[in-house]
């Protein structure tokens, strides 16, 4: 396959060649742009889905067309025109269990992203999605023997053992009517992961799904459904990237996480979409008694993001930790944060986020902490720190707290500021250049997030920060 000629983009100051490479779509199956019932039926037929899924898709499409976006919400998505987005693009290949069976161009893509290497060294299983379809899926045999299921939603739907499970959980935590882009997701979803961890099983190494959107003017709508049974333990890693184009791309995935009694789930994301991407993703977890949900989130890419992972602490003594960092550079308007709903007694939530704005980038941190009437002795703390690296950027924090139980305690703190001149001067007096000094400070600022990631992902995150910091000093 010949590489497409790279186009000049708005982010020419940063070398993103690690992520910015394009392979031809020649021979790929690409559905027409726009949204019609015929396209939805075609996607469903292609996947040979049960009728209930087709009906759900068609109902969701109807909801999408009738639901309005809130007029007072976040960064503009006026540049997103669904009539110019193809909702299904698929390479002509079947899902493989060996990288040797993956077409060369796709295999090269994931090798450049380091996925096969990471799989060999530190993962229990990998799913790799290229545009609309999973092209590679594999899991270590010893993990499989413990009864762990890691497959695609499509495969689970064709398995008589798992189809009822998918049917029971799919679309229940994030209903199609949740918001306009949730409805869109359910109409055209394709790819993603289905993970089932049986009761009491601890998966020693993380599972990882990597989503690569190669096609120009296309959308990716993967669905991730994870069920961690009682007392089980899982770390799931999600990575994503795309090459840059002038034309808008769309990511509207959905992640539904069910964490049962006494279980623990860590969900880590390093998001590095290209800066023509509208990232309108929805993630939600329901956490049962004594269970723990941990989110680690790094958002570096996309043109516009709406991303607010939600945790519902339904069971007594359940807990949630959210650690996140968002880096907004030139042309980026990233509206990120999280939501926590504490319904159970003695539940605890801790939110710690950082944001960095540079080169005219805009960051908006939003959070909501809702403490229900029955959440006796619930505890929640929210900390948000924002760093402004120049005076053409912007950073807003908009947290909200709704407390309806007098025994609950909620604490919130937020600060916005810049790197102090004293700190830069101190580091420069010890031999650093100004650029190095600022990069070091930003690296330190991000450290609480990177230390929560496995080493190789922390390295990737630090590399992304270095990439973004290149050219930070005029």
């Amino acid at each position, binding site marked *: 396959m010949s590489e497409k000629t790279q186009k000049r983009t708005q982010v020419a100051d940063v070398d993103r060649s690690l992520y910015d490479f394009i392979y031809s779509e020649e021979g790929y199956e690409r559905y027409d742009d726009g949204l019609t019932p015929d396209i939805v039926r075609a996607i469903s037929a292609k996947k040979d889905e049960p009728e209930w899924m087709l009906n759900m898709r068609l109902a969701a499409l109807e909801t999408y067309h009738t639901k309005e976006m*809130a007029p*007072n*919400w976040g960064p503009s998505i006026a540049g997103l025109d669904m009539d110019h987005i193809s909702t299904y693009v698929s390479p002509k290949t079947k899902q493989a269990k060996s990288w040797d069976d993956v077409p060369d161009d796709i295999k090269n893509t994931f090798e450049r992203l380091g996925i096969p290497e990471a799989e060999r060294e530190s993962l229990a299983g990998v799913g790799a999605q290229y545009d609309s379809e999973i092209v590679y899926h594999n899991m270590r045999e010893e993990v499989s023997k413990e009864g762990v299921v890691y497959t695609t939603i499509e495969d689970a739907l064709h398995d008589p053992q798992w189809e009822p499970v998918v049917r029971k959980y799919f679309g229940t935590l994030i209903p199609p009517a949740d918001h306009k882009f949730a409805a869109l997701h359910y109409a055209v979803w394709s790819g993603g992961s289905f993970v089932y961890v049986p009761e009491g099983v601890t998966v020693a190494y993380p599972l990882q799904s990597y989503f690569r959107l190669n096609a120009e003017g296309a959308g990716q709508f993967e669905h991730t459904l994870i069920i961690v049974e009682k007392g089980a333990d899982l770390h799931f890693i999600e990575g994503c990237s795309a090459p840059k184009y002038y034309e808008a791309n769309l990511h509207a995935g959905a992640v539904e996480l069910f964490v049962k009694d006494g279980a623990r789930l860590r969900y880590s994301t390093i998001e590095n979409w290209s800066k023509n991407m509208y990232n309108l993703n929805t993630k939600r977890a329901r956490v049962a008694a004594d269970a723990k949900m941990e989110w680690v989130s790094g958002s570096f890419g996309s043109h516009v993001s709406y991303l607010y992972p939600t945790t519902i602490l339904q069971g007594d003594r359940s807990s949630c930790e959210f650690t996140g960092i968002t880096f907004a550079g030139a042309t980026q308007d990233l509206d990120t944060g999280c*939501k926590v709903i504490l319904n159970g007694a003695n539940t605890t939530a801790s939110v710690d986020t950082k944001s960095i704005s540079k080169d005219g980038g805009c960051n*908006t941190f*939003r959070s*909501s902490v*809702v403490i229900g*009437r029955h959440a006796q002795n619930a505890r929640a703390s929210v900390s948000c720190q*924002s760093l*402004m*690296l*120049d*005076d053409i*950027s*912007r*950073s*807003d*924090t*908009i*947290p*909200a*707290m*709704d*407390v*309806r*139980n*007098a*025994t*609950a*305690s*909620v*604490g*919130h*703190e*937020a*600060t*916005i*500021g*810049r790197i102090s001149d004293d700190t830069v001067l101190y580091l420069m007096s010890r031999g650093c250049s100004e650029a190095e000094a600022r990069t070091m400070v930003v690296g330190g600022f991000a450290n609480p997030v990177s230390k929560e990631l496995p080493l190789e992902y922390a390295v990737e995150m630090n590399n992304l920060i270095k990439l973004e910091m290149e050219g930070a000093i005029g």
Partner: protein
Amino acid sequence: MKDQTTATPELTLERVNTPPAQTWNYLRANDITLTVPQLSRKGDVYFALPRLFEGIECGVGPQATAWVVSQAADARYVEVRAGERKAEPIVVDVDANDGDVHDVGIMVRAGAEACVVVNVHGTDGEPATSGALVRIIAERGAKIRVLEFVAAGSAQQHVESVGIQAAQDARVSVRQYFLCAGTLVAGIATSLDGDGARIDHACRYLVREREVADINHVVRQRGRNTRADVRETGVLDGHAKKALRATIDLVHGSKGSEGTELESVLMLSDDVTNKTVPTILCDEDDVSGNHGASIGPVGPEQFQYLRDRGLTQQEAEALYVRALFDEALIAAPTPEVRANVLARARMVLGDDVANDLVEGLGLNEEGA
């Protein structure tokens, strides 16, 4: 005074107290909707404020501000001359029982000093809607103190709106004591336009029984080296509902500015609803913005300290309420305001505690 015994046409005011940036609509924390009486003023001619007051942003938003302007009879314009230190406070007296509505514009010229007092008083009785709109222009180096006391009846709703423009080196001090009303909608917007302008804003509230308090605080820091210090402290009891939106807006060009906003909420009942949306908007790098919120019951350490001294939980919690009245009484600048605060203290705390407060401050039983 308006006669509200006959059926008065009503008007629904939407998006009242809306902050500059909003959160999720489903949280229902972005604004409040109010139904208010609308008296027709057609054919009447009343004194209006100079047009430059129309440019002042007010906390409750344009729709509610327009309603107050339309319902007030003669607007009142007060000018404090350059360099003058006005000894007597400018008092805005609102009888909530009568549904008083006032529109006041105050020009504090360069280097002048003035104190503005808004005193809202009402008793439990007939429903009524009152309003007070105070717009202030503080010129270079002016010092302005704003004191607001709201104690309306449980069937009454009151709209309290303040807008302040502060020029270079102007100093603004705001102290609000919301002892509350059936429904209180209170908004204040301050624009620190000039370099070195400053606002120190303290808001204390007690919302109880089935009262509703909806509060919107906005500070726009536009000049260089401006300072905003906003502190809200409140107690919620019974079935009270309170929403606070507090925004520090560090506008592009406000280099060297610092804005801080802190809220502390004491919740005394499982039936209360507290909504807090503290926001920082930052469009400048060489600035510092901070906010914090603490919401919950009396801390275990504090409670243990008080219990060691023989207080029950109820007595310990009552101390916090009493402290609020104590502070309001100390801050009350006129006998009328003290009487208003004391009447509410008698209703909430009982005569014994109220008498104790009076004695402690060396006042007579009427608070004079």
